[in-house]
């Protein structure tokens, strides 16, 4: 079981925190600080597994982490998960974020924290791995986002107006109106 998923940057500021076991708020912040402390000490060419964090409970738990540019992705797991499998899962998760956000960077995670949570919900559910097929995950996320947009609300109104006009079917205007002697040339209206 995955006990928690943490993403923080090189200075320890949290970008995404997800706990699958209840901890009080101050405990959560302490765990983040301790994990950052342990992980930031590591060189870049050592292995990606860490033991010995005492706050996240016990000898059964390991920290499996990956460092991408400015972000650390840390999964705290117990012995029922395969360590190499979790490493691959982190890779899948990051690639999914990349697909959803087009060349994801730290700012995307900062400003769209809720969307990252929704994507994560498609990968890991209740501390267990749910889906590992990237295309499936991306497709589902897309569908859900579309559903949210279609409900709209105030923020979506301008978007809806534009799309409504785009879809408007202007009846075919005659080029030349010939009624007896009157000859009216109608200018062609460009679609907008």
């Amino acid at each position, binding site marked *: 079981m995955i006990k928690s998923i943490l993403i923080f940057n090189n200075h320890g500021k*949290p970008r*995404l*925190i*997800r706990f*699958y076991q*209840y901890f009080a*708020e*101050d405990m*959560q*912040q302490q765990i983040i600080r301790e994990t950052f402390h342990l992980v930031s000490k590591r*060189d870049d*060419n*050592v*292995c*990606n*597994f*860490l*033991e*010995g964090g005492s706050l996240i409970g016990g000898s059964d738990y390991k920290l499996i982490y990956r460092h991408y540019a400015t972000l650390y992705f840390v999964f705290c797991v117990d012995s029922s998960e*395969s*360590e*190499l*499998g979790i*490493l*691959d*899962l982190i890779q*899948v998760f990051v690639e999914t974020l990349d697909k959803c956000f087009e060349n994801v960077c730290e700012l995307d995670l*900062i*400003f769209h*924290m*809720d969307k990252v*949570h*929704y994507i994560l*919900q498609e990968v890991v*559910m*209740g*501390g*267990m*791995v*749910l*889906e*590992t*097929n990237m*295309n*499936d995950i991306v497709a*589902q996320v897309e*569908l*859900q986002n579309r*559903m*949210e947009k279609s*409900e709209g*609300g*105030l*923020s979506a109104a301008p978007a809806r107006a534009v799309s409504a006009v785009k879809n408007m079917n202007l009846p075919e205007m005659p080029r030349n109106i010939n009624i007896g002697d009157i000859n009216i040339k109608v200018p062609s209206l460009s679609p907008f």
Partner: protein
Amino acid sequence: MSPSVPLQEMIRAIRSARTQCEERGVIQRECAAIRAQFRQADNGGRSHNLAKLLYVHMLGYPAHFGQMECVRMIASPRYSEKRVGYLGAMMLLDEKQDASLLITNSIKNDLSHSNQYVQSLALCTLACMGSAEMCRDLAPEIDRLLRASNSYIKKKAALCAVHIVRKVHELGELFAPAARSLLTEKNHGVLHGAVVLIIELCERNPETLERFRKTVPDLVQIMKGLVLSGYSPEHDVAGISDPFLQVRILRLLRILGHNNEGASDAMNDLLAQVATNTDSTKTVGNAVLYETVLTVLDIKSESGLRVLAVNILGRFLLNNDRNIRYIAMTSLQKIVGTDHNAVQRHRGTIVDCLKDQDASVKRRALELSLALVSATNVRSMMKELLIFLSSCPQELKSHAASGIFNAAERYAPSQRWHIDTILHVLTTAGGDVRDETVPNLIQLITNASELHCYTVHKLYRALLLDISTQSLVQVACWCIGEYGDLLLRGECQETEPVQVTEDDVLDALETVLQSHMSSPATRGFALTATMKLSTRITDNVDRIRSVVSIYGSCIDVELQQRAVEYNALFKKYDHMRAAVLERMPVIEKNSPGHTNGESMGEVKENQASKKPTEPKLLPQPANQVCDLLGLLGGSEETLQPSPSTALGLLTNTPSTAGGNLLDLLGDLEPEPLTPAPLVPVYDKDGVALTLSCEKQSDTAMTVTLTASNSTDSDISSFTLQAAVPKSVKLNMNAPSGDSLPARGAAKVTQMVVLNYQNKVNLKMKIRISYSSRGSTFQDTVQIDTFPGL
């Protein structure tokens, strides 16, 4: 009231704050606005507000006022609001909060919603924070969803079922049939969820495990499909078809095949195939291989397969990738108990990993190396471990030190080697060893009598170099005190001799005494050592006398007390000094937790055998004061040969000493501590009678008679009658019963009180009468001597 600012703008505002204080200010303003918005009945920006609150929560600020808003949003008909509401519930609520109960109904409704995404939100939330009651309520719904036609919902329902089973174990039965049918699915996501569910069910309940053993052929079929199938782009990860599913199925096969011949046979071929066909150049391939190896080693596989598995692990060990090496050592650790020889073959590589820079790899290598130490390789392994100890990271030091001590104790090839090793550990990591190391080492040294000279020389040299490691300094002081004469003699076969004068030795001890690095216990050791040297050196006794009298006014009470006592030894009891400060006898190896009581027991035997030689004084090095008292008592004993004194002394050794000094010198009466022994007096025809006595005073005694029956038939009307000479008065109490069931199932006891003037005349005649198998029996027995008198 400021208008609601969308999430991005708030984040921008927070980020532009330049100090922590500014940031707190921005967040407080935002939170106030959010709270005001929540109080309003209905507004369009509700989802934004909650999103903002969740961001603030992530940064560590309190967000509990959003809990009720989450409940309201979940109940909203709009998808966007439900989404944020459920996210908020998962982040802010948990089963301990009351608000979580309020969402049960919403979840129930949403589970039967027409829109699959709403259903999935409800499933996700239930799987994250569902309490036991919620799980019980909603389990039938989940079961229904497991049989739904939508694979998206099915896979989520499967994982939700896992959470339910974890919370409420009995519901496992409910999900077993659905889980079984899910195995026929084609969708990998659903298969994965199903396998996870089956693993959870099998781990909880052994009967379910039995039932699922029948699915082994199906699982093997699925695996074969994955391994042998051609390239399938949707599931492919670096050339392997859905490695995550493969790893899960292998884990399930491991659980099903454990300790079961039939299931293991069915998987042997498949495992061999996976092990040979999987490409191990990428991490995914290694993940599958690793899982295969663990499965092979855990089930009852054939030996060829086991050899293959251990070889794969050996290859992993030599891999350049540190992750793989770490994984290999983790799995070798699991099998070092069962396949010890196979792991021994890789000892060289493992020992090399001790020198790796990576702390995680070092930790694994240390554990494995300690497990691999055996009688044959102990010297070389210990050399490597000692090198490791000098450069190992701080968090591993004490674990390494205690591991080395254990290994040295079990496999030490010679005493000198053992002592050398312990000294080496103390010099490199003395600050991190456990407390019982000091007495253990002292005990070891006293046992190795031919090495005393060598040991004291080594310790003296170590003491000169460094006095900061308390455990080392304590042992060194003790040894110098005991064997100072060997040190001063200067010659020693084992090490090169060094000229040590008495002044040098006393200087060293004084440095320890005066240094502020020394702990109070260490200074106690040093003072006692100085005192002991007064009998072993010839010239500088005055110097010792002055040191001792100085410390008679030391602030530390313990030191002061010792110094005062030693002073007394110099002044009033100078004639005893030599005897008191004699060499200590060899210390018996005691099990940890030995108490005063046990030591009394041992001395008792000496007393019983009536040998007035020096009793086994078991000194407690941890409490030097008692030690001294024991020695004083010993000297007392040499003046007045009565072995019972020692017994009396040891019964009076509590930790406070002052008053006891006087007590001991006056106490000569032994205290009988033997429990009353049971003496058999009669044994005939399967009826046995035993007797035990307890002296109440000089003229009264209680005798307890116990009768038992070892025949195959019951005895009834069992009575005892007693007669004593005229000078003795007899009082018989009521017996406990009068029937003795067969084969000693119960006993009958009878108490008799005797009053007498002198012990000489004490005799008793007992008549036994009983009926057994329809006939009566009678017998008499005479008791002339009573035990314990």
